[in-house]
């Protein structure tokens, strides 16, 4: 059901995008010119089929790397060793895949109301699963019609996204914001020679990662730097989605600063842990931003997705 629903959503969004392309807004015209044709696919093709056609993949890569003011060819490729346990949306099937796919659908719905490309993921307090949600959301989005996704570790104090991807942590966002490195320097892409399974390789190839870097005590100042908005503006034409993982908004102001430049904010609440007062405060802190809603994380109740998934698996 969710796939049919997503297909309907997708068709609707594509019609809107086509309408937008026919009548481009002046400020968005340059971006649409450089934007990759990432929405030409009518549906999400099975990754196995996509991987069979090496030519198609190369064409996609070329478009990805040469468009816009950003030279993606200069982006270094690193050997990523993603943790499947912490990136369950990389799996071919499973409850987590379905749940993040559902989240992705809600994000698509939100985009129907208001154009959204960059999404900040935050929460009130630490340990609520921001990085987990942002990484898996990025992977889930990357699986959708080979969408190009930029994943930014916006938490320059305690950066952990590189651990999930098994990537290098430096140079990162802090280095870019402080002017020590260029955008191409801080970006990472998975190495083509990495011995991934086909599914993971296909998904990860659509993913570009900016680690946190070591912002330290200057993280608050760095997050308030206008270079972050520049980063988004420069990167936006090259990516379908930009997911920014941030620090919690109650103890530090980094997340609030970064949220100003993002199109939407997702708040993460940990089931059974996040107090409602914390959630209220977090929402209040981000009242200036476009808060899309909450992601309720780590729910212990059986949601029924597993049994449904298992049923499908048996049938397959």
């Amino acid at each position, binding site marked *: 059901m969710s796939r049919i629903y997503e297909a309907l959503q997708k068709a609707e969004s594509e019609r809107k995008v086509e309408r937008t392309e026919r009548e481009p807004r002046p400020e968005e015209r340059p971006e649409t010119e450089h934007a990759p044709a990432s929405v030409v696919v009518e549906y999400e093709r099975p990754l196995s089929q996509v991987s069979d056609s090496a030519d198609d993949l190369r064409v996609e890569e070329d478009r990805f790397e040469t468009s816009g003011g950003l030279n993606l060819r200069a982006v270094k490729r690193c050997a990523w060793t993603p943790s499947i346990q*912490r990136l369950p949306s990389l799996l071919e099937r499973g409850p987590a895949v379905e*749940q993040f796919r559902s989240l992705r659908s809600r994000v698509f719905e939100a985009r129907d109301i208001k154009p959204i490309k960059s999404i900040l993921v935050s929460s009130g307090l630490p*340990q609520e699963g921001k990085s*987990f949600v942002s990484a898996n959301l990025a992977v889930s989005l990357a699986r959708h019609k080979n969408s190009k996704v930029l994943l930014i570790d916006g938490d320059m104090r*305690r950066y952990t996204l590189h*651990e999930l991807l098994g990537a290098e942590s430096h140079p990162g966002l802090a280095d870019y914001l402080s002017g020590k490195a260029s955008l191409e320097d801080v970006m990472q892409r998975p190495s083509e020679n990495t011995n991934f399974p086909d599914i993971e390789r296909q998904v990860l190839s659509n993913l570009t990662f900016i680690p946190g870097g070591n912002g330290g005590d200057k993280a608050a100042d760095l997050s308030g730097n206008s270079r972050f908005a520049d980063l988004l503006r420069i990167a936006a034409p090259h990516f379908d989605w930009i997911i920014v993982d941030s620090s919690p908004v109650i103890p530090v102001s980094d997340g609030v600063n970064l949220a100003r430049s993002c199109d939407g904010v997702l708040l993460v609440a940990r089931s*059974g842990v996040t107090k409602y007062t914390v959630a209220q405060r977090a929402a209040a802190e981000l009242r200036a931003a476009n808060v899309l*809603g909450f992601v*309720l994380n780590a729910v212990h109740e059986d949601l029924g*997705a597993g049994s449904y998934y298992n049923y499908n698996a048996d049938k397959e």
Partner: protein
Amino acid sequence: MLGHRTLNVDDYLGILKRRGWMIAIPAVLLTLVGFALTFIVPPRYVSQTLILVEQQKVPDDYVRPVVVEDITARLASMKEQILSRSRLQPIIERFNLYSTKKMQMDERIEETRKNIDIKPIHSEMARTGGLPGFFISFQDSDPHTAQMVCGEIASLFVTANLNARAQTVEGTTEFLKSQLADAKRSLDDQDSKLAAFQAKYLGQLPGDESQNMNMLTSMNTQLDASTQALSRMEQDRTYIQAMISQQQSMAPASGEHGAAAPGAQQIELQNLQNEESDLTRRYTDDYPDVVAVRRKIKDLRAQIAAAPAPAASASSGTVSSAPNRNDTPAVQQLRAQLRALDQGIQSKRHEQGVISSQVRMYQARISSSPGVLEQYKTLTRDYQTAQAFYDDLLKKMNQSKMATDLEKRQQGEQFSVMDQPNLPDTPVFPKRGVFVGAGFMAGLILGVLFVAWREYRDTAMRSERDIWAFTKLPTLAVISFSGAIPEIPVAARRRWGWLKRKETFQADKPLANAGGSSNV
């Protein structure tokens, strides 16, 4: 989340699922504690006996019972008596109750009182206003002791009832006896007073009025007759005197003229005296006729005294009835008649006085009868009151004697032991089921209270409803916890779910949903 927003059935089910163990553990533990207590707590055995209240065997219409107090009240009174120290102490000493607990006698008595239970039977078959009987029970840790003490108390009740009834009827009889003696004394006193009054006012008592009137009428008639007879006799006497004077005047004697005049004066004097006596009988000395007559008599006597001696001598010979030698036989005969008449006149006058006094007496009786009647009524009323009181007491006395006899023959209301005290074979306390149930309920309540307290303190959000209720923001996705760890079997994750929750906060073991231990 309890108390922070309105919960629905799903929320309660969620709470139960999440914290069910907090309810289950105390419930199980306290159930076990309750079960264990039944082995630790010393058992209590209850021996019980039924005492029936048997009704009076003779109908109440024939012999009215003296003890008419309600059985419930009497039972309460007897209970107080039997539970008194003087009654209980011998029982406690005899059966050596509570000797192992190092209690003082007062405490032992108090404990015994607590363990005695007297419960009236309120049956539909019970007669109106009465009791068919009552249960006596005694509780003790030893069944034999409980049985024996129960029997002892039951016999105390039976004896106390008999004694109380006997004392009541005897006391009533004695009291009535003394009252009856007083009443009799009072009645005798009234009797003697009445007799004295009747004796004092004999003939004047109520009912004698008609007789007195008849007598007065009769006396008046007699008086009239006597007066008439006296008048006739005096006329006769005057006539005879005149005859004698005539006879003497016919005799040869000088100075006849002188003698005639005194003789006439004598007759007139005699008449005046008769008239005086007649008047004095009827009137007082102050009456004008009496005074006039007496003045005439005085004047006449003065005239006679002023007359010459021969006249005096002649008159004395004329009026006197005494025989004279010079009298002729005819005169003597007249003189004899005159003397007889004088005697008759005196007799009549005496008779007239007697009748007059009797007339006065009857008149006095009649005139004083209203006052006598009033006093008589007062006396008789007091007498009747005393008599009625005496009669009433006498009747009660007889009833009391009958009631006493009824009690002595044990035909009145009495207590009978229907069932002998039983030997209890199972303790009434502790009841295993009750203890286990109470332990379970207490554990359940404790667990529920604990869960409620924890839920009230727990303000963590757990569902989309929580998020919407407190932030008014939609929930875009719900990410399950366990679904992200494929290598852990589902069964094991369910079994050790609570351990996993603890692991989420362990710094050295990052979890899938947390994004790593050092993640912010």
